[in-house]
């Protein structure tokens, strides 16, 4: 401390203690008193831990008399068992190796059975030959800090519990959604004589119900109805539309299997049901399969309500879209137009229906390109001389590879005329505007 100037301090004028006398008092402050009554605990030990010196502050904290400690107790005797263990395995070895250690959080035992949290620092005092002679230890009261840490710990535990609960809730929700999702899809497709069927379904997120759907079902003893579509939106509302769509199409087809008529019925139901401020609609291809058990050929009649066109894979190794242009979304307008088309599958041919999750899958290194219609056509052309199952398997592998680029739900439905050895006649495809 450095003092300059000789004039009286401001306090002298009113008779109070002068700064000179304060300064003098500081000078008289003995080191002994500073040690004994410091605002922290001091102790010194021999190298075996025996306490040889301790200050009054620490004795007060411990609630012990000097005679009960000095020469009688070791530093570890002042620590609860956890602290003893930490002292033996970390504190003492580190101190011996480094000559000092600081900021260690421990507790000291109090005579009344209580525990006082302290922060401990220690240094070794060496003799002239470099042999350690003494350990000097300083202890700071850490009661408030410990209370703060305890509160932090409590908060952390609460946060961890909340996170655990949230994970459990999410797992339960996903489980429930998975069960519900399964209920929106046929558990299995009915066997169709002379026709191989294959499907694939992928939901973009386990936290959302998908909006894609498909179904295959018998209409009579010979023909089978099929459809595949995509409800706008996701989640429970979309699932409700999916459910209504499936049951409506099945019921409508049993009443009148003409594809345009079935879509018209569905449009009326959706439009009436969701005519308020929450309009709901979907895109869908509905069709009828009529397999000829004698020739092995399968006649297909279908109609599209705003859905991407189906692909026809010929066993000769080609793939072409079956155009259904101009068809409108189902449920959006009171009297929409739906586009019909027909084709015939020769043995070995496959009809592939898909949702836009496939064509809009993002590809490329930065996932900025869309897979697109042409890539899908070219890819399926390479599978054209296989089978419905092989086509879906190849597409599944492709989509699995694009997993990071699959933002949307994806559904595939492949219907293949069973292969036969005779060479099929050339076939025609017809679109009805």
């Amino acid at each position: 401390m450095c003092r300059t100037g000789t004039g009286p301090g401001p306090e002298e004028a009113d008779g109070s203690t002068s700064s000179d006398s304060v300064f003098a008092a500081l000078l008289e402050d003995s080191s002994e008193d500073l040690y004994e009554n410091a605002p922290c605990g001091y102790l010194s030990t021999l190298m075996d831990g025996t306490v040889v010196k301790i200050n009054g502050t620490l004795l007060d904290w411990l609630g012990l008399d000097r005679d009960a400690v000095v020469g009688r107790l070791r530093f570890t005797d002042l620590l609860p068992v956890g602290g003893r263990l930490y002292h033996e395995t970390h504190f003492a070895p580190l101190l011996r190796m480094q000559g000092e250690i600081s900021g260690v959080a421990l507790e000291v035992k109090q005579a009344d059975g209580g525990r006082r949290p302290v922060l401990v620092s220690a240094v070794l005092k060496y003799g002239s030959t470099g042999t350690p002679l003494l350990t000097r230890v300083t202890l700071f009261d850490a009661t408030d800090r410990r209370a703060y840490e305890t509160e932090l710990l409590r908060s952390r535990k609460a946060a961890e519990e909340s996170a655990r609960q949230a994970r459990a809730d999410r797992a339960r929700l996903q489980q429930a959604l998975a069960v519900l999702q399964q209920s929106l899809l046929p558990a299995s497709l009915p066997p169709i004589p002379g026709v191989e069927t294959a499907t694939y379904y992928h939901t973009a997120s386990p936290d959302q119900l998908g909006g894609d759907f498909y179904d295959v079902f018998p209409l009579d003893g010979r023909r089978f109805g099929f459809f595949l579509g995509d409800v706008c939106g996701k989640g429970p509302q979309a699932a409700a539309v999916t459910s209504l769509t499936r049951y409506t199409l099945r019921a409508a087809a049993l009443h009148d299997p003409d594809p345009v008529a079935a879509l018209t019925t569905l449009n009326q139901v959706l439009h009436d049901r969701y005519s308020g401020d929450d309009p709901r609609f979907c895109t869908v291809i509905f069709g009828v399969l009529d397999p000829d058990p004698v020739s092995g050929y399968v006649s297909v009649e279908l109609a599209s309500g705003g859905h991407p066109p189906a692909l026809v894979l010929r066993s000769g190794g080609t793939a072409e879209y079956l155009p259904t242009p101009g068809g409108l979304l189902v449920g959006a307008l009171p009297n929409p137009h739906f586009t019909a088309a027909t084709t015939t599958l020769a043995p070995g041919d496959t009809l592939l229906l898909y949702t836009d999750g496939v064509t809009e899958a993002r590809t490329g290194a930065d996932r900025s390109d869309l897979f697109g219609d042409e890539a899908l056509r070219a890819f399926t052309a390479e599978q054209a001389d296989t089978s419905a199952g092989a086509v879906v398997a190849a597409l599944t592998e492709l989509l699995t590879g694009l997993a990071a680029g699959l933002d949307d739900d994806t559904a595939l439905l492949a219907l293949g005329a069973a292969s036969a050895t005779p060479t099929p006649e050339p076939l025609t495809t017809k679109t009805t505007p």
Partner: protein
Amino acid sequence: MDIIHRNNVTVTGNPQGPTVVLAHGFGCDQNMWRLTVPALEPHYRVVLFDYVGAGRSDLSAFSAERYGSLDGYAQDVVEVCERLDLRDAVFVGHSVSSMIGVLAARRAPERIKALVMVAPSPRYIDDDGYRGGFSEEDIDELLESLEANYLGWSAAMAPLIMGNPERPELGDELKNSFCATDPEMALVFARTTFLSDAREELTSVRIPTLVIECTQDAIAPREVGAYVHRAVPSSQLVTLDATGHCPHLSAPDATNAAITAFLAGLG
């Protein structure tokens, strides 16, 4: 799962020499042997490892059930020995690891031919006529304090110290540590350690055994060293003029001298 990765196995020293396996105790990891390894490296092949749950072991391999008994840790030792195809190795265990070594040697006698027990303790809690150094209340308090996360090894030494490239300052902390233990796993190890009673197992030891104790040990008092020496007829007892439960750190020269003399005597 590869055991080398699982137990963070490190092999150093003289590949032509006899093998010495160093096993850390509770609340620590293989860093504990940092002052022992240099003394052994010239003549011995030295194997270090971390028990699952400690140090840089693969924490995903931890199972509270397996590591709820000393046998689970002994299985780690045996699997490390098998993975390295060790024969006639000397197992050096600190504290509770001395007992884990006893179990491992019994399971795989062809792999472990001798034991070195550094500050061993077969039971930490006092019992009729046995002084382990702790009362049941002590151990209850220890486990509570561990649960409360108050102790250095469970708070400051959590595994986030490991592999944290975005926080390099945490790496420095390791230099100040013999231990990095996940708090949950430390608690399991603590229960296993401090509630264990391996006194019966000691009587079955028939292989050469060195018991190293200190004159002052706040964890395993002198009576415990004497007990172990009496219980293992094939043992010799060395009392170091040193203080503490970790003489390999606090009195490395004396500890290393005792270990190397014992190793040399094994031939």
